C-alpha cells in the first residue's frame, strides 16, 4: 500500500466506477467550499449543511455525466448551488451575511492580507449591507466571484450561466454597489 494521495482525476474515475471510498476523498477535499457556497446562497447553517450533503449525494449519482478530465470543483459546486437555491426558494426570506467579530476570528488565521487596510470596519459594514440588498442574481454572481474567489469561467459553470452573462451581470452588480456605497458615504 502506498500512501501517496491519488490525483483528483484518478479519484473521479474510480468514483465513476462505483468506488465510494474514492468519492469520499473528493467530498473531503471539497466539503469546505461546498458548504460555504451553500451558506452564501441560503444564509442558514443547517440548510447549507443539508444542501451540501444532498448535493454531494446527487453528484455521485450524476457522475456519468461528468466529462473526464474536466475540473471537478465547479461541476460539483454547481450541483450544490442548485440544491441550495431550491431550498432558498422554498425558505422565503434569507438572512443577510454578516462579518466575523474579532472574537470569532480563528487564532490560526493568516496575517492580514495587503488589502486588509482597504476598508474601515464601518466601510465594510456599508459594503456588506449593499451586497445584502442586491437582487438575488447580482448577489449570487458577487458571492461566487469574490466571496468564493472563483474565476469567471467557474462562476459561469456554478451558476449555469454563459460566460458573457457572468461578465455583464458582474459589471452591473459592481456598478450598483458603487452607486450604493457612494450614496451611503455622503448621507
Amino acid at each position, binding site marked *: 500500500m502506498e500512501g501517496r494521495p491519488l490525483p483528483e482525476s484518478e479519484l473521479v474515475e474510480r468514483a465513476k466506477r*462505483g468506488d*465510494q*471510498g474514492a*468519492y*469520499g*476523498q473528493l*467530498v*473531503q477535499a471539497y*466539503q*469546505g467550499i*461546498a*458548504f*460555504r457556497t451553500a*451558506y*452564501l446562497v441560503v444564509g442558514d*447553517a443547517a440548510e*447549507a*449543511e443539508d444542501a*451540501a*450533503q444532498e448535493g*454531494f*449525494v*446527487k453528484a*455521485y*449519482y*450524476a457522475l*456519468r*455525466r461528468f466529462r473526464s478530465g474536466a475540473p471537478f470543483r465547479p461541476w460539483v459546486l454547481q450541483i450544490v448551488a442548485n440544491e441550495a437555491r431550491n431550498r432558498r426558494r422554498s425558505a422565503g426570506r434569507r438572512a443577510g*451575511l*454578516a*462579518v*466575523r*467579530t474579532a472574537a*470569532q476570528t480563528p487564532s490560526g488565521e493568516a496575517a492580514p*492580507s495587503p*488589502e*486588509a487596510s*482597504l*476598508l474601515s470596519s464601518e*466601510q*465594510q459594514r456599508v*459594503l*456588506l449591507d449593499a*451586497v445584502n440588498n442586491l437582487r438575488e442574481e447580482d448577489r449570487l454572481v*458577487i*458571492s461566487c466571484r*469574490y*466571496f*468564493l*474567489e472563483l474565476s469567471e469561467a467557474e462562476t459561469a459553470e456554478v451558476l449555469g450561466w454563459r460566460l458573457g452573462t457572468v461578465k455583464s451581470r458582474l459589471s452591473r452588480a*459592481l456598478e450598483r*454597489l*458603487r452607486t450604493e*456605497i457612494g450614496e451611503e458615504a455622503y448621507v
Partner: protein
Amino acid sequence: MSDLELALVHLGRQLDVPATPELAPRVRARLADAPARRSWVSRPRGLAVALAAALIVAVGALLAVPGTRAAILEFFHLRGVTIQRVDELPTVPLQRDFNELFLGEKVSLDEARQRADFDVVVPEGLGDPDAIYFQDNPPGGMVSFVYGTPQRPRALFTEFRATVKDVAVKKVAAGTHVAPVEIDGRQGYFLSGEPHEFAYFDRNGEFRQEIVRLAGNTLLWERGPLTLRLEADINREEALEIAHSVR
C-alpha cells in the same frame, strides 16, 4: 482588479461563515445505504429510469436500421431527459441520479386515453397491466404499460406517436440481432442478443452514446401513426403473437 473588487475579496474572507460540518462520512453512509433502499417497490423513479433506459436501448439499436430511423428520432428529442448507465435490465439496483428522468406519472387507462392525443391501444395478449404511465413527451404523449411485479416486471409495452427528425446514426454491437418482421402489413424489428450501443440526446441537447445490456428481447413496430414497443423475456414468435393481440 479594482479597489472595489479587492474590497469584496477581503470582505469575503471576513464573513461570518459557520465552521464546515464533517460531510464526508455522512455522504458515504448515504451512498452505502442507497442500493438496498433502491428497490422498484420503494423508488418509483428507479422503475421509471429502468423503463426509459430499456426504451432507449431499443430505439438506439433501431437507429442502425434505415427503414425506421425517421419513425424513432423525434422521440430522442425528449427534453429534460438524462439517461444514466444501466448495467442490466430490469432488476439490478440502479445507482444513478434518477431525479431528472422519468417515464411519466402513474395513471389509469381512462386518464391515459384522455391525455394522449392518439387512440391508446392495448396488447390484450398480456392481460391487464399492473401499472400505466403517461408522459407529455414526445409531443402527443407517451403511454407505457408495465406487467408483473415492480421487482420482476414480465413485460413493458410502450406507445407514442412518431414524427420525423434528422439525426446522426449510431451502430449496433456486433452480437445484437436485428430481425425485420412484418405485423399486419407494417414494418417492425425484433431485437435480441448482445448489448446494444444506443444514442440519445441529454437534457442539454447533447448527443451521447452508451452501451447497455438488455435483459429482455424487444419488438418494435409501427401501427397507424404510432410506434409501439414491447420488451419482455420472450422469443420472436411469442412477441409477434402479443403484437397481433394489440387492440
